[in-house]
């Protein structure tokens, strides 16, 4: 019986049953696609609330497709920040994506256009949901349906927020706090992944110093300081291990 089941599963895995593969992808992405709805609504509401046109909501959500950055972008655009500042902020805030390539199963997606889409839609969630793709033998269709369904859910919820935002009375203030709360939650999650008091202190120190020396561009400066600090720690550690190696001889 168990053997039969195993064979059945194996047949499904290799069979190019597109519909079945799409459903598997949908099943994988469902929790993320649902979780992102309130955040998308908040982004859409915020966008209209600060005075940006409603049609910029699907444009922003569809093209930039990087949730946390989009919130920051709204603030920058409203303040008419220089484009160089926008590019630099994007570079720093999304720099973590560089590391996603290390584990993302792009080689499983063969079609050239699909490959480009797959790289374009390599969000935090896409990265997290495909961590087991290699071991569990995800098909290209399954990977692409995870990414595209998540994309659709994000665009629709941001758009809905922008369209329905007008229904929320002006006396409701402070919706932008959703962003702060999101990053606080993500900080806690990051700490669970990498529990380090010294690195937490390094980050907080960067924030305080950056706030003193460059209050206008605190975020960018603080991130650079943190990265420099990390690189310094790396060099110190490498230097030390080289020295220890010499002592050992």
């Amino acid at each position, binding site marked *: 019986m168990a053997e039969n089941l195993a064979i059945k599963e194996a047949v499904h895995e290799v069979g190019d049953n597109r519909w079945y593969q799409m459903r598997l992808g949908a099943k994988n992405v469902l929790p993320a696609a649902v979780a992102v709805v309130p955040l998308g609504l908040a982004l859409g509401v915020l966008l209209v609330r600060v005075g940006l046109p409603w049609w910029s909501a699907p*444009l922003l959500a569809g093209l930039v497709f990087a949730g946390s950055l989009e919130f920051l972008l709204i603030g920058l655009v409203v303040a008419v920040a220089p484009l160089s500042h926008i590019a630099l902020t994007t570079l720093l805030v*999304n720099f973590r994506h560089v590391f996603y390539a290390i584990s993302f199963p792009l080689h499983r997606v063969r079609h050239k256009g699909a490959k480009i889409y797959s790289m374009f839609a390599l969000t935090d969630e896409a990265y997290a949901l495909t961590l087991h793709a290699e071991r569990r033998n995800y098909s290209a269709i399954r990977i692409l349906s995870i990414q595209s369904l998540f994309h659709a859910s994000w665009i629709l919820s941001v758009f809905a927020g922008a369209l329905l935002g007008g229904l929320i009375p002006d006396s409701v203030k402070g919706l932008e706090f959703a962003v702060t709360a999101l990053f606080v939650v993500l900080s806690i999650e990051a700490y669970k992944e990498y529990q380090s008091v010294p690195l937490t202190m390094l*980050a907080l120190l960067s924030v305080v110093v950056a706030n003193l020396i460059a209050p206008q561009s605190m975020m960018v400066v603080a991130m650079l300081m943190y990265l420099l600090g990390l690189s310094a720690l790396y060099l110190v550690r490498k230097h030390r291990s080289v020295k220890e190696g010499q002592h050992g001889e």
Partner: protein
Amino acid sequence: MANNLYLFSAIALSALVTFGLRALPFAFIRALRSSDLINYLAQRMPLGIMIVLAASTIPQDVLNPNVAWPVAVALTTTVVLHLFKSNAVLSVLAGTAVYVGILSWAL
């Protein structure tokens, strides 16, 4: 206020930089997978970046007591809920609801 050309440029530029960051590493994928420094940074970056992002999105005049207490109450709500429930959606919504509630009706 931002005009449409500026708005388009800002979105296009940000989309382009984001795509570059996601796509370019695949051109050097072998070198990346074997670089010590990259692996070192990859493990340690999220923690600091998220803390900086959280700090930089806190309301500007947070040192003003009238702003400080709603922020403190909302942050506490988010953190405590998240430590006990580990449900990101719940923590974000509850913290935001508390903050919006205080700002809209209690002040």
